[in-house]
């Protein structure tokens, strides 16, 4: 039973790696082509994000049900993927927020984007500051995280106006 579970977890990890490639491509859209960015691009990014995060929940639980050396190996594989996903989400979030902020007229759906990406940046930062992931963070992420923290702080300061909270 454990063996089957581990094999499933392993296959799910491979499948998730595939989805992460797609997520990465979507996260690069804002910087690759800022003038053509539209809400549909953002929706694709957001949908893929949600799929990846849910898949992570599923895989984490499956790995949790296993044991022994295989569990350790799978956990390490999983942790690396978690770091990759949150790093990509941080970059994507940052990209979408930056491009939108620079537009003279904010398109419909901006409030929704700000809310969602505020949450993404916040969760990404909370996830990546955990001790267990520090060995898997590449050097480039240090700068990225500083930038994301700054954007997060600015967004939070401006949030009441942006989100019409009064």
């Amino acid at each position, binding site marked *: 039973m454990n063996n089957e579970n581990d094999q499933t977890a392993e296959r799910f990890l491979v499948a998730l790696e595939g989805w992460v490639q797609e997520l990465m491509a979507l996260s690069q859209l804002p910087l690759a082509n800022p003038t053509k960015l539209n809400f549909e691009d953002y929706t694709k990014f957001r949908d893929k994000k949600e*799929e990846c*995060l849910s898949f992570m*929940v599923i895989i984490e639980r499956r790995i949790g049900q296993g044991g022994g050396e295989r569990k350790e190996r799978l956990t390490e594989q999983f942790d690396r993927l978690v770091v990759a996903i949150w790093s990509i989400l941080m970059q994507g979030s940052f990209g979408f927020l930056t491009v939108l902020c620079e537009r003279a007229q904010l398109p419909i759906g901006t409030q929704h984007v700000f809310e969602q990406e*505020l949450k993404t940046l916040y969760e990404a930062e909370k996830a990546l500051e955990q001790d267990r992931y520090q060995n898997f963070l590449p050097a480039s992420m240090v700068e990225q995280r500083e930038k994301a923290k700054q954007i997060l702080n600015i967004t939070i300061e401006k949030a009441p106006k942006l989100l019409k*909270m009064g």
Partner: protein
Amino acid sequence: MKTVSNTGAKSKLNNNTDQTAGEFLVILEQRLQDLSALSRLPKENPDGVNFPKYSQFRDMMGECLSFLIIIERRIDQIEDVRKDKLKQLFDNLEARIWSTLMEGSLSFLSVICEREYLPIGTRHVFVQEIKTLHDADKVLKQEKFQNILEESTLEQREKAELILNEIIDRAPELLNLGDPSNLVDEPHS
């Protein structure tokens, strides 16, 4: 001797931050009422549950959670005695919001699962609510909430745990992840 003090400006800023944090807590309390009403829809009118109603629940969830982030930061910036009181109010509100989200998530999932034909968008609902239940469970397990959770929330958490495990076991079918053995090529023996 002239002494320059910026405590005046600083305390004015702190006062503004306290007020803002306090005002935001009041606004969020109102939003929670709206969220509560939306989370009860599936139980009160299961036949009336549809994707637009679910979207309203999700939109309000998004607002409330963003609001929590903003208020938490504002309270962190406060340096005087009001901080503790505001923190307490915040923790209480946070616990109630996540309890409401857990309840709403369970309700929408239950109604959808009981339908003879799963409506369009079901996959989307499952994907999102797996994360909501998981996050709600993680948040509500925190030490700081243990003395303020109501009995009904503790029961909900157990129910959520069962549903989550069941969904996760069935996830490949429900989420069209397919038979796990189809996800990658089988190694040749």
